């Protein structure tokens, strides 16, 4: 018979307010195998833990049940406490009587019996707990950063500075991300390239960093400390060693195609670098645009390239590497607002998104830095900015606030005034949100010093009329209709998750919210961790955010990675699956459902009618098993079992709840 001790926590009044502790203690004394019951105000405190440790010694306890908050919260704490008292940590069982009981009920009369039932179930399970030992896992001292925007760059730099090796995988030919597309940055108006380019160069030159641009992650296997990753490095058709970055190839290339970097507002060549400050400054050939790849003729770049770096035969490469930790920093996209018919996006060249407008300021942008109308090349004198296009819009867009638009609109209105001094800006807004250091002052300046008219209200319709855009809106403060004869309209469209975010999430094994932004492990206390150990997130792939916030998060993620890599060994999963091979029928259903490829068939020999018989059964690789339990549900004969959550234990819990009411 086990000797079980039960300890009930008041959690201040969190539990004690809704669960009758006295009654619970009384009931717990009667559970099978229970030899000691106690309670404490805050069991997780030093004193609370001491109480448990002492009781283990005094009463010779060999199983401990705590009635506390969720095991997510404090299982680790209590496991540590019982270990210090000489027990195996897996002999501890948590009955979650807070989240599962006191917090979700009001009536003490009903919550108390439920708490008692949960305690009884935990005690029944604890009686069947076996001591378990977690295997040790060696930590590969190398980190992977997916996405080379400002988030990825910052994280990689911080990890590299701490002395660890880090690879950055960037899908595009250059790192830089969205920040490379920006002109100046709020709230200080320093030029984006001036602050970003040095960082890009620094990360590229850092001895601990390898940049894998024009590359994508194809597969992630393994677990924290040992992620085995396959990376596809797409063929550039340019030899990076020979290329000097002189740029003659793209000067001479005759084939043009819309530039992604300029969002189609300008053209680029078939062989190209996305923007002049690109890092690495090595062009790529876009097969779909290249005349040689399409028609078999041309090869001008190969003829013109002084160091003969062009190599049409180059193939995609698969790189396989092991990493101890991964940071996902894949950034964000802009919503396409075409479905907002009233704004006419896509139907008139002078109706732009904020990011497109941003490019008009840039000296290397589609207009060479002149802020002009794309329809006729004239500078716009009246520009209407519309806020919250697709943000805070339950019906047609996203519920959330995109957070950066109020600020970049103010920025763009200021920049416009500087470029076109007689221009007038109008901003239609729901409300202006400028929380952040120096932000409110910045927006005020736009309104007060740069003559920007803020109009609280909505735009109902935009009509092209001769060479103008007639903007019809309503001022919701005065209720008056407003008509503006605008030269240009700029839509602050919602920042959204990248279209392939769910796929990336699946690849690395992290989940997303309903908008496809990656989920952090805890909204307050674990903002860069995910629910998958060893995988962290940073930047706008988690939620829309500006550069300061992105950089802060990137550094935070880097610290987590550095902390992890600084360990030589990690504790693996102790609760892994195990098979009773004698009973296994070898149907291999478990192999099919195991998401971690931890199960594989093996042949065994068995006695049969005097002879021996070979047959197939399965075995589990405990270092690959994450203990998700998928196999145990698919196995009809219950032959594969999860240690610590065996069928027996679960059934004992169910019985403890059902049989005694």
């Amino acid at each position, binding site marked *: 018979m086990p000797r079980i001790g039960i300890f009930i926590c008041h959690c201040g009044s969190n539990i004690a307010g809704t669960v009758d502790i006295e009654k619970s203690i009384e009931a717990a004394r009667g559970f099978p195998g229970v030899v000691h019951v106690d309670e404490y105000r805050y069991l997780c405190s030093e004193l609370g833990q001491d109480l448990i440790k002492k009781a283990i010694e005094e009463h010779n306890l060999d199983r401990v049940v705590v009635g506390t908050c969720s095991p997510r919260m404090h299982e680790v704490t209590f496991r540590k406490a019982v270990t210090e008292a000489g027990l195996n940590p897996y002999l501890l069982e948590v009955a979650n009587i807070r989240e599962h009981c006191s917090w979700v009920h009001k009536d003490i009369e009903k919550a108390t019996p439920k708490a008692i039932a949960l305690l009884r179930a935990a005690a029944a399970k604890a009686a069947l707990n076996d001591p378990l030992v977690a295997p040790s896992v060696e930590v590969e001292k190398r980190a992977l950063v997916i996405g080379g925007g400002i988030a990825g760059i910052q994280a990689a730099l911080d990890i590299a500075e701490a002395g660890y090796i880090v690879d950055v995988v960037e899908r595009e030919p250059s790192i830089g991300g969205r920040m490379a597309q920006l002109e100046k940055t709020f709230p200080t108006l320093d030029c984006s390239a001036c602050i970003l380019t040095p960082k890009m160069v620094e990360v590229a030159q850092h001895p601990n960093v390898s940049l894998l641009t024009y590359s994508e992650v194809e597969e992630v296997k393994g677990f924290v400390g040992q992620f085995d990753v396959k990376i596809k490095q797409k063929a550039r058709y340019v030899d990076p060693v020979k290329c000097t970055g002189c740029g003659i190839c793209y000067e001479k290339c005759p084939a043009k195609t819309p530039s992604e970097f300029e969002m189609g507002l300008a053209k680029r060549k078939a062989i190209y670098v996305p923007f002049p400050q690109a890092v690495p400054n090595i062009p790529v050939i876009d097969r779909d645009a290249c005349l040689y790849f399409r028609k078999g003729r041309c090869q001008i770049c190969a003829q013109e390239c002084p160091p003969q770096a062009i190599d049409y035969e180059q193939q995609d490469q698969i790189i396989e590497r092991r990493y101890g930790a991964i940071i996902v920093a894949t950034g964000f996209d802009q919503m396409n607002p075409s479905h907002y018919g009233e704004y006419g996006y896509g139907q008139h060249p002078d109706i732009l998104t904020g990011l497109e407008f941003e490019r008009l300021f840039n000296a290397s942008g589609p207009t060479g830095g002149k802020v002009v109308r794309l329809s006729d090349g004239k500078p716009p004198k009246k520009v209407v900015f519309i806020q919250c296009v697709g943000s805070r819009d339950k019906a047609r867009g996203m519920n959330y606030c995109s957070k950066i638009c109020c600020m970049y609109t103010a920025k763009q209105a200021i920049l416009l005034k500087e470029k076109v001094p007689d221009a007038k800006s109008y901003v239609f807004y729901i409300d202006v949100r400028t929380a952040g250091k120096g932000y409110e002052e910045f927006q005020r300046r736009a309104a007060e010093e740069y003559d920007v008219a803020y109009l609280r209200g909505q735009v109902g319709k935009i009509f092209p009329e001769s060479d103008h855009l007639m903007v019809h809106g309503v001022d919701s403060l005065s209720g008056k209709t407003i008509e503006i004869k605008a030269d240009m309209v700029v839509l602050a469209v919602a920042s959204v998750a990248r279209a392939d975010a769910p796929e990336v999430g699946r690849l690395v094994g992290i989940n997303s919210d309903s908008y496809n932004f990656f989920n952090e492990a805890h909204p307050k206390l674990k903002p860069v961790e995910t629910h998958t150990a060893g995988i962290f997130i940073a930047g706008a792939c988690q939620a829309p955010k500006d550069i300061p916030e992105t950089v802060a998060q990137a550094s935070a993620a880097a610290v987590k990675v550095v902390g992890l890599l600084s360990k030589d060994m990690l504790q693996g999963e102790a609760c892994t699956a195990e098979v009773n091979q004698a*009973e296994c029928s070898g149907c291999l*259903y478990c192999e099919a459902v195991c998401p971690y490829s931890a199960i594989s068939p093996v042949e065994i020999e068995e006695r049969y009618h005097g002879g021996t018989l070979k047959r197939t059964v399965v075995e589990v690789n405990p270092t690959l098993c994450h203990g998700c339990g998928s196999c145990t549900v698919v196995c009809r004969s*219950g032959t594969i079992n999860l240690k610590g959550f065996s069928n027996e234990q679960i059934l*004992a819990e169910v019985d403890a709840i059902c049989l005694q009411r």
Partner: protein
Amino acid sequence: MAERNTEQIEKIRDVVAQDLLSGRIDLLLGWEKGHYWWQSRPLFARSKKDLDKLVWDPFCAVNLSRYLPDELKIHSKVGVLVKGCDARAFNRLLQDHMVQRDRVVLYGLPCPGMLDYSRLAEEAGGNLVGLVEQNGRVILKTDSGEKEAERKDLLIEKCRDCLYPNPVVYDQMLFSPQGEKSAPERFKVVEELENLSAEERFAYWEKELSRCLRCYACRQACPYCSCRECFVEQENPRWQGRAYQTSENFMFHLVRAYHGAGRCIDCGECERACPVGIPLQELNRKLIKDINELYGDYEAGLDAELEPPLLTYRPDDPAAFSEK
């Protein structure tokens, strides 16, 4: 006596006798006459002589594939006569890795549907002594004379709504296939049950399952039951209570039905095996219908290469459970 289909039987014998002699197979699973003339039971033929007993008549309902896993333990190559349902059962076993394709030779028998003795006897009225088949009609012979009836009205339950009378997998097809079939009433009873209130439905099953003897004949007949130790017999944990009471019968039948989700090939052998006539096929068909509705049309046993829906992970799976 049922009139012997001598021509077809000879053809089968010729083919399999050769294979037995040449060593292509060392056992043939077929049918022989049972205790009564209206019963055909499995035949385990190891020699040409054993084949004298082989029959192929309207009573060969037993699904022979079910015997394969055991026979393959002692024989290196086994031949099986397969009707539509035996062939689907073979695919089930193949997908469950209970048989190896290269150790089995399948002889395909397109199936006209098997006859139900109790229906025959009822229709005949008097003491039924034999029958003759003629163009879709059956002439029933009794002590007192003859009576004619439509063949389709005399089929056993599992053959009435059979969609695949022709073997879907075989090495050699012995006769020309049956025409296409439809089964418009396959889910009729299931739909009727679905329309009942939860209480009515419970009452219905309580009545049916209260008769269960827990003899486990259904499990023994089933090609999807391939566990080494069935959950009902396990001691640790003891899933199945031993008490002889309806709630324990529920436990058995519900768990068994769930084990067939996406796996049951609708051969109806369980129901045919049940000595107390529990309509088990209704339970199985409910799951077949649900699987089709949740994950798209899937017919277990049709194609061993097609991944069963519950073993498939697709990012675009309809999240039907979370939506409700």
